[in-house]
Each structure stands twice: as C-alpha cells, then as structure tokens.
C-alpha cells in the first residue's frame, strides 16, 4: 500500500520537475561561429558599471575613429505572493507545484559609429522566466545576470558574423 503511494507521488512529482527550472530565450537566433576574430578597436561609450556585460569583441582604443556605444535596458514582470494564502491549502505544493512566475527582460543595443554616423547596429534581447515553488525561491539577480551575459554573447556572435562578411567584401 505504501509502495503504491510512493509510486503515485513520484509520478506527480515528475510532472512538475520542469516547473522548477528557469528558462532563458535569446533573440535573434544566430549560428555559432567558432573561429576566432580580432576584436573591434573602438572608443567605447558604456554607462553601465559592470564591464563583464560588455561584448568581449569590443576593445577600447582612444585613438580609434570608430565609436561603439553599448546600452541595455532591464525590465521586470514581477510575480507576487498575494495568492499564498490560498496556495497554503494546495497539497501539490509538496511536489513542486508553481506558486507564481516572474520574468526578466533584457534588451541590448550596440551601435558602431564612424564620425558620429551610425554604420552598424547590433541588437539582442533575452527573456528569462522563473517560477517560484516550495523548492525554488523568487529573486531576479540570477536571471538578470544570465540574460545580460546571454545578450553579450549574442552580440559577440553578431560582431563575428559582421567581421567575417566585411573580410569577404
């Protein structure tokens, strides 16, 4: 009898395992280029404080005539605890039933300028969804960082493609 209960609970738990995960989607989809390219030497304009989020293929050079401005915007769609008074009566909480969902949206833009004229724009966006349940708490620090790194990597790939195309022209 007890064995049967354990099997039922395991089956229900397996249904909700996916709910506990954080999922991230980055746009645009881009083919990964594994070849190494030289970083773009440019005057970087970046008003963020964490240099980790800057595309790694932008290399700051005071002498360069090319300017690159990198900026990002972070928006939050918050979950809430308003329904927790009812959630407390939900027996499925013990198997990871989601209580709320929150999202972080990051939009990044990198403009390459030659004498103040924009010659190329790279854009990337990311959405990270995270559910709160009894096994995973809320908080946007992790998804924010994951998204900022994901858009950085996406823009790096776009720069790689751009440089490869420029070489062929």
């Amino acid at each position, binding site marked *: 009898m007890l064995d049967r209960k354990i099997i039922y609970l395991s089956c229900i738990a397996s249904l909700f395992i996916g709910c506990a995960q954080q999922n991230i989607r980055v746009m645009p989809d881009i083919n990964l280029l594994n070849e190494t390219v030289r970083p773009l030497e440019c005057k970087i304009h970046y008003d*963020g404080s964490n240099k980790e989020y800057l595309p790694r293929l932008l290399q700051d050079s005071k002498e360069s005539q090319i300017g690159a401005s990198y900026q990002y915007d972070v928006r939050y769609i918050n979950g809430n605890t308003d329904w927790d*008074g009812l959630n407390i009566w939900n027996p499925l909480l013990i198997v990871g039933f989601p209580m709320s969902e929150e999202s972080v949206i990051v939009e990044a833009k990198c403009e390459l300028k030659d004498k103040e004229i924009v010659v190329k724009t790279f854009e990337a966006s990311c959405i990270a969804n995270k559910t709160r349940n009894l096994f995973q*708490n*809320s908080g946007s620090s992790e998804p924010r*960082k994951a998204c900022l790194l994901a858009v950085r990597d996406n823009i790096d790939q776009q720069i790689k493609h751009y440089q490869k195309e420029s070489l062929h022209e």
Partner: protein
Amino acid sequence: MSKSIIFGLIVSATAVLFLSGCGASGQQFSQFATPQPDKGLVYVYRPSSLLGAGVYYDIHVTNPSNPNLIAGELVNGSYLKIDVPVGESEVWGQTESKASVTLDIKNGETYCVKGGVGIGFIVGRPNLDIVDMNTCKIEIAETKQNN
C-alpha cells in the same frame, strides 16, 4: 458561550497582541529624500499584510565597497532607506532561503524594492521585487521607517 469559543477568542486576541508588536514603530513615510553626493538611494519597503505578518528578515546590501551591509530589519508595514554607492549592488534577504535583486545604481537616482513574505517549508520566505517609482509612491506611503 461554550468553552471552545472562549478558548478560540483568547487565542485570537493573544495572536493579535503578539503580532501587533512586530510592526514598525518609526515615522510614517512622507517623501523621498535627496540622495547624497556620488550615491544612490534605495528604499526597501514591505506593505502590511496578514500573511506572514510575524515573519521578518534582515535586508543586506552587497557591493564591491561593502561585501555585507546589514541595512535593517524589514518588518511588516515598514520601509528602510539605504544610501548605496554608484555601481552594481545586490539587495537581499534570507530566512530559510535567500531572495535577491540586483540594481545598477546611478549617481543621484532613487530606486524602490518591494519586500514580502511567501510560503516556506518551516518559516515564511522573503520575496523581493524591483518596482517602478509610481507603484512605489503609492505603496510606500502606508509604511513606517524602521532604520
């Protein structure tokens, strides 16, 4: 009146008296202050709620210049005012698990973080959200300072 009803009333009255001591006792929020030079200002507030009213937690701020500043206790219906240096700062709270938000603080800017309490295994868990200033202005007005 039956004994069980009287017992229920006594328990309820005791709970109300017990929880009434958990709220903030400082000044009611009136207006946002001006940030100090070369700093930003972060308000962390928690609207009054019956759910998890007795649960409170410390608000910590982590940044390169101060790895663990304890700004104060976030009790039910309270707010904390924190001067934070320019740059990335993590604002977090912890009971049986941790909740955190990260802000990129700009010079002279004011930010708002809304706190709450959600369900936990043994004790309520902190819930922290970054909110826009319009929402903050409305909700923080009902709270009292606790640091």
